[in-house]
């Protein structure tokens, strides 16, 4: 369904752009009178259906990327606007959603794993492998040391209280589900998200 619509949009957008050139009628107006209308910047951009990352209205958005997804073209997001088909937002966006591009392209995006050593006053770049190894090691150390298999009454409780996990309400259901599974399997009880703060 999504594909159909995307294809449709692509065709119609290109069609509109093409027909508009004629509709502008500049040939009739003559060179001297041709105005400098900025070309429609999404004419051949790839369109992807997505959802606004902010509030729980979860407005439909269309993300426009440069590049046609061919192997040797890296897609870059050039524009985001509302999905006119989405029943709730019907193409509209709020000031946050309308500027979602500036979130994706924020200069404050994190790009590499980093570590700040104890007492240090700076972050240092590290590899994913080193970072993940370190985290797994820290987790295991703490869990093995502080895991509570039984409480004072001798009841099996299998909980781990010295490490906590704040999850995010902005991840997908699938990512959240994996997060839940992993965190609970370790016995962490201190698992929370933004739902009640």
């Amino acid at each position: 369904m999504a594909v159909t619509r995307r294809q449709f949009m692509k065709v119609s957008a290109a069609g509109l752009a093409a027909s508009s050139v004629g509709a502008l009628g500049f040939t009739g107006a003559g060179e001297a009178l041709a105005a400098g209308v900025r070309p429609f910047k999404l004419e051949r951009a790839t369109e992807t259906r997505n959802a606004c990352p902010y509030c729980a209205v979860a407005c439909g958005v269309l993300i426009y990327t440069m590049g046609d997804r061919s192997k040797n073209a890296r897609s870059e997001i050039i524009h985001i606007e509302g999905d006119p088909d989405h029943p709730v937002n019907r193409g509209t966006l709020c000031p946050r959603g309308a500027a979602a591009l500036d979130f994706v392209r924020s200069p404050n995006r994190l790009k590499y794993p980093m570590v700040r050593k104890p007492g240090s006053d700076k972050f240092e770049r590290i590899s994913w492998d080193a970072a993940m190894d370190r985290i797994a090691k820290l987790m295991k150390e703490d869990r093995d040391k502080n895991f509570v298999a039984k409480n004072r009454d001798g009841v099996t409780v299998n909980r781990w209280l010295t490490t906590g996990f704040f999850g995010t309400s902005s991840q997908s259901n699938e990512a959240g589900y994996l997060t839940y599974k992993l965190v609970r399997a370790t016995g962490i009880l201190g698992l929370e998200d933004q739902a009640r703060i």
Partner: protein
Amino acid sequence: MTNSWNDIKNTDLVLVMGGNAAEAHPCGFKWVVEAKANNGAKLIVVDPRFTRTAAVADVYAPIRPGTDIAFLSGVMRYLLGNNKIHQEYTKAYTNASYLVKPGFKFEDGLFSGFDEGRKAYVDRSGWDYEFDEQGMAKVDETLQDPRCVINLLKAHVERYTPEMVERICGTPKDKFLKICEMIGTTSTSDRTMTSMYALGWTQHTTGAQNIRSMAMIQLLLGNMGMPGGGVNALRGHSNVQGITDLALLSTSTPGYLVLPTEKETTYADYMKSRAFKPIRPGQTSFWQNYGKFFVSQQKSFFGAAATKDNDWAYDYLPKFDVGYDTLKIVDMMAAGQMNGLFCQGLNLMMAAPNKTKVQAGLSKLKWLVVIDPLETETARFWENHGEFNNVDPKAIQTEVIVLPTTTFAEDEGSATNSSRVIMWHWKAAEGPGEVRSDMEIMSDLFSRLKTAYAKDGGAFPDPILNLTWNYSNPHNPDAAEVLKEINGYAVEDVPDPADPSKLLLRAGQLLPNFGVMRDDGKTSGGCWIYTGVYTEAGNMSMRRDASDPTGKGVFPNWGFAWPANRRVLYNRASADPNGKPWSERKKYVWWNGSRWTGPDVPDYAPTVAPDKAVGPFIMNPEGTARLFARAAMPDGPFPEHYEPMDAYIANPLHPKVTTNPVVRVFAADANAFGKPDKFPIVATSYRLTEHFHYWTKNAHANAVLQPELFVEMGERLAAAKGVKDGDWVEVTSQRGSIKAKACVTKRLRPIMVDGKPCDVLGVPIHYGFIGLTRKAHPMNVLTPPVGDASVQTPEYKAFLVDVKKTTPPAQSPAVA
């Protein structure tokens, strides 16, 4: 939301209270504007500030922060006293007629069963119905018995006269009565009111009871289950609904199941309190299926390792003694009781109350892992930012590892909006640098832990070793595959219960609905309410049919709404007990002689005839909705007004019990609360429409639209303090102080509370020391570290401060 964003257009009256829908949810608010423009609806806004929602309201009334229960109880008193309730609905669909045990009492601000020493209602046995020999609740259909719920309710709210409401809330009596009158008009069968609330109600020590109050009003008016009705929580994050459903919460498991407590030592113990036997004849009591959902979930989590013999891997789940909510975790951190912490897309330094305490807690950790697409204050809590974060990095021994993640645009998967609609989104591009998705990070972490435990052993490795992760690519699973697991499938062939010779499901077949789930291990399913989202017919969350055949705003084939693709909850209640719509105008789900029908999926057994008298509130064992909450709430079966913990006045109703008596206060916070003699101004925190929490300060356009922290204050307060627009002021609470620019406005007038003018000051939450916006003191320096008695949501919305004019902060060098 019990209803949906689109459904709001069907309403006749919108009450925005405890929220600021226009600013926080502009695109959802469009349906309010639509209802006004095309359905003749009126909009009421009750808020301490004249907000941008109020700017388009028909009626605005001010209210002192933290007094919503007094207001709403006053509304109930008006409705009951002026017969502006939907009699038939109330009688048939609520527990109005149920008789309450004689042990239930309310005196001097306390319900029966209170233990002064433990600050809890230890004995809540009286908070229940009287039962007959069959275990059925006793009722008085005539509603004459003084022990009837409705009569107890009348007595309970009798104290909330318009004068008392004005005294507590500061809402002028005439405004209050005007609003009552408007609300009363929706008690008829052909008119509905919708309630839209958000954190303005939850972020109080009486948060859950605020919402209950409104639910009770809606029940009295007959507006639950109705188009254009309902109690609608406008949720904050794009997938906070989904993540709540999937239970990233201390004591929950997915689908609103509850994690076992340490008292429930075995699976049998656990199920004992979850039998959910009907307490009225012939009722559905849907939670009777609890075991099916739980076992299927354990099968999802632990696969073949969850067997009948090991109680479905019951011991693999941690058992809790107390809740480990955000406030508790922060308190433990600050007490040095924690070593490690993950912050995955949650900026704890900004999001938790009492920043000083959070900062101290983080500093005591051995390690902190921050998983985020953006720079955050949390990741840099150890960094000196001048007076905005005045710390000494050398003294902080926490190791901090930061992992960069993708954003929404760079991954795919489903998310659940506030209307419970699960919708898929597609990936548009790769992220910058080396970013990875949360799924990939979790998979990587799991794989390393599993390998380590397999190799070296360690504490109770079983749940880790047996956790299912059997995805085609276990290092970076396909989201669709995970959604299939959440939906559930048949582990083995499932015979048809009606005819065992037939197969209901083949092994491996995706479950079409949660009705087929089983408690014998034959089905698996991670979150029962999501079952139906990914069936053999495909991924329902990808559906994008924008048609709405009846024009009621249902859009049945757009995404998938849990449960069972139902858009309006309790929609059986939109028809009268005989199955006829209450009115033609509000026709939604009705009995056509052989089955329930209508534009939506009935929230009811589809072929159960009305004469079976099965109540519409099928999740409750009584089949009706509760005006009297029984023992479901820790702070009382009826809502009662208590002052915020930073109490502005002694509670006029019962000065000895000023604040919520069962609020949890940590020992470390005994002196964390302010008194009006030192902090005579009531403050409230809130969001600005230009920003989203602590993210958009990193987005250029949003930084342009609201570049800098300010506090809003009325002209009277500003004059008293000699403050003009744009002046720097210092705001101080018992917890600390911040500097901000002053925004002097007519929109915050002093209100008369208990006969005296009360100034209200507003502080937006969005600004910190990281971001493209101007550096600022995080405002959670000011907020009290205490939560709602029911669910521990921090009391951000009402606290006491003082304010004075000051000099600009010394700017520190920009970082990040």
